[in-house]
Structure formats: structure tokens, C-alpha cells
């Protein structure tokens, strides 16, 4: 099996003012990568017209390389997340919301991708619990539900040679270094890492933490990469697996 090259970015925050700003920087992506994953916050405020702009920017690269995305918190702001996903699907960007898929690389490897948005709650020793007010229970329950879904999606990728967990929120605090400690519970949750470690994966890609760090690892030893645009400071990063 040839190594699998994964191009990744997050937090492109596409708006009407983004037309023409992204596509030129994806021109050579197909030469560098077998798959392209985008880890959420695709739009600025979750409007279908913003997704249309992004679809225009991604159409060429998605035609050349299998391209997958998850939604982020910004993509939910206008309650039109389903339409945002549909607009992107129409140009070949498959939006994975609690879903898994497998694609074959040029080198013949089966690449499995499990995608969820994720959510917050915090990390070991400083996390929320499903206790007290209904709002607090709902907050943590949302993360737990998504984590359970992520675990099932990864476990379903039984025929994959390489498995990638694609999230928006962070599963570990390693990749939050640089962010203020006070906001860690709004940036991710250990429940996501726990799900990943139980099911197994080769790489976790996330965004959301603009002030964080690129590299981390789950308690179970899975590579984690924060590919938020301000963190990677380039159009995308490429990781080689296998």
C-alpha cells in the first residue's frame, strides 16, 4: 500500500468577500494529496449564499481530489446548516455530519473518514458534567451524543487501511496551547478523544482553536492536528500516513 497523503485545513470562514481568495491557492493540491479534508467553519455565519461562494472556490479542487468536510459552529449560526451542506455536496464536497465514508487513493489504499462537528465540555480535571440545570445537562449531553456517533462511525470503517477522524472541535488540549485556559471548555472535549481511542484511528484533524497549536496526541496515542488557518498559516497542510 502506498502512503496516503491527506491535505487539511479548517476555519476558512467564507463570506461574500471571499470570492476569488481561496481557489488560486488550491491549484496544486491534487499534486500533493490523495484526499482533502476541511474541518469546519466553512462559512462566516452559515448562510447558503456564503456556501455558494465556497462551492465556487472548491469546485475545481473537488473535481480533482476527493474532498470532505464537517460543519463548524459558524455554519450553524443561521439555522441553515442543511442547505449549506447541500450547496457544497452539489460541487462534490461531501459533508460528513455523523457519517463515515471510504475512498480509494491513487496508490490503492482505502481511506476511511469519519466526520462529526464535535462540541465543548472541557478536558480531564476541568470539564462539565450532566448535572444541575437542564441547560448544563443538554450542553454535555450534546457532546456525549456526538462522541458516541463518532465512535460508531469509526468502527464502521472496517474495510479501511487508514482511518481519519474529521472534527471541528478539539479532542485534546494539546492543540489548544496558546488559547486562554478559561475558554478550553468551549473549544473541545475529552469525550471525543475517548471515542477515538476506543474505536481506533490513524489521524484526527480539527480546527476551531485559532490561537492554539498544530500538534497533539490523544491519551491513546493517535496523532491530532489542529489545522485552523491561523495556526497552519498556509492554505492547507499535508500529512502522509502509512
Amino acid at each position: 500500500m502506498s502512503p496516503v497523503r491527506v491535505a487539511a485545513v479548517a476555519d476558512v470562514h467564507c463570506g461574500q468577500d471571499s470570492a476569488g481568495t481561496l481557489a488560486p491557492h488550491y491549484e496544486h493540491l491534487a499534486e500533493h494529496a490523495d484526499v482533502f479534508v476541511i474541518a469546519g467553519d466553512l462559512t462566516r455565519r452559515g448562510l447558503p449564499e456564503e456556501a455558494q461562494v465556497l462551492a465556487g472556490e472548491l469546485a475545481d479542487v473537488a473535481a480533482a481530489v476527493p474532498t470532505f468536510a464537517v460543519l463548524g459552529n459558524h455554519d450553524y449560526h443561521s439555522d441553515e446548516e442543511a442547505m449549506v451542506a447541500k450547496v457544497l455536496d452539489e460541487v462534490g464536497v461531501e459533508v460528513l455530519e455523523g457519517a463515515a465514508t471510504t475512498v480509494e487513493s491513487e496508490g490503492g489504499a482505502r481511506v476511511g473518514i469519519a466526520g462529526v462537528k464535535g462540541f465543548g465540555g472541557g478536558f480531564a480535571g476541568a470539564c462539565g458534567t450532566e448535572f444541575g440545570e437542564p441547560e448544563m445537562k443538554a450542553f454535555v449531553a450534546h457532546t456525549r451524543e456526538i462522541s458516541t456517533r463518532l465512535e460508531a462511525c469509526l468502527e464502521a470503517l472496517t474495510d479501511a487501511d487508514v482511518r481519519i477522524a474529521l472534527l471541528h472541535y478539539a479532542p485534546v488540549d494539546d492543540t489548544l496551547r496558546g488559547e486562554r485556559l478559561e475558554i478550553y471548555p468551549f473549544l473541545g472535549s475529552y469525550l471525543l478523544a475517548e471515542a477515538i481511542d476506543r474505536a481506533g484511528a490513524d489521524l484526527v484533524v480539527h480546527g476551531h482553536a485559532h490561537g492554539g497549536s498544530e500538534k497533539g496526541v490523544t491519551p491513546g496515542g493517535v496523532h491530532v492536528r489542529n489545522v485552523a488557518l491561523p495556526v497552519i498559516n498556509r492554505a492547507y497542510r499535508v500529512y502522509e500516513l502509512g
Partner: protein
Amino acid sequence: MPSTPTEPDDYVIGRVQQALAHDPRVNELDVTVTIKGGKLFLTGTVTTEERCRAITEIVCRECPDLDVHNEVAVVSLREPDGADVEELT
């Protein structure tokens, strides 16, 4: 509500952060706002020049009495070259 000399800095910062989050030109949650020596500083990154300019307008309108320093950068979108690959084993 414009800032007043008696409004504590912490509340001004909160008001500015809310304005940046809700203004449809930016919807920006990741700009850091600090006030030191009577000056308001904005740091962080955004994805377009237009949003960077809009941030200045929004904050100056919100805080007409403060000296606003927009130090927000526009993120680099340069495409990596072929050698810029991290091997994970």
C-alpha cells in the same frame, strides 16, 4: 451605547466582543480585545482585508472616546510546496 469615562474597561471589552460577534460584516469570535493605558488593542487574525477594515469601523463606532489600535492580521493563504509534508508513522 457609547463608552463613557466611568465605564470599567472589562465592560467595554465585553461590549466590543459582542459587537464583533454579531456584526454581519465580520461575525468574529476570535479577536482578542484588551485595554491598556487608555488605549484599546485588537489582536488575532481574520481571513480577508475587508473584515480587518470592518473591525476597525465597528470598534471605533462602539468606542468613540477610545484610541483604537487594530493589530489584527490577515491570515496567509500561501499554497505549500511539495516538500512541505509531515510524515506520520
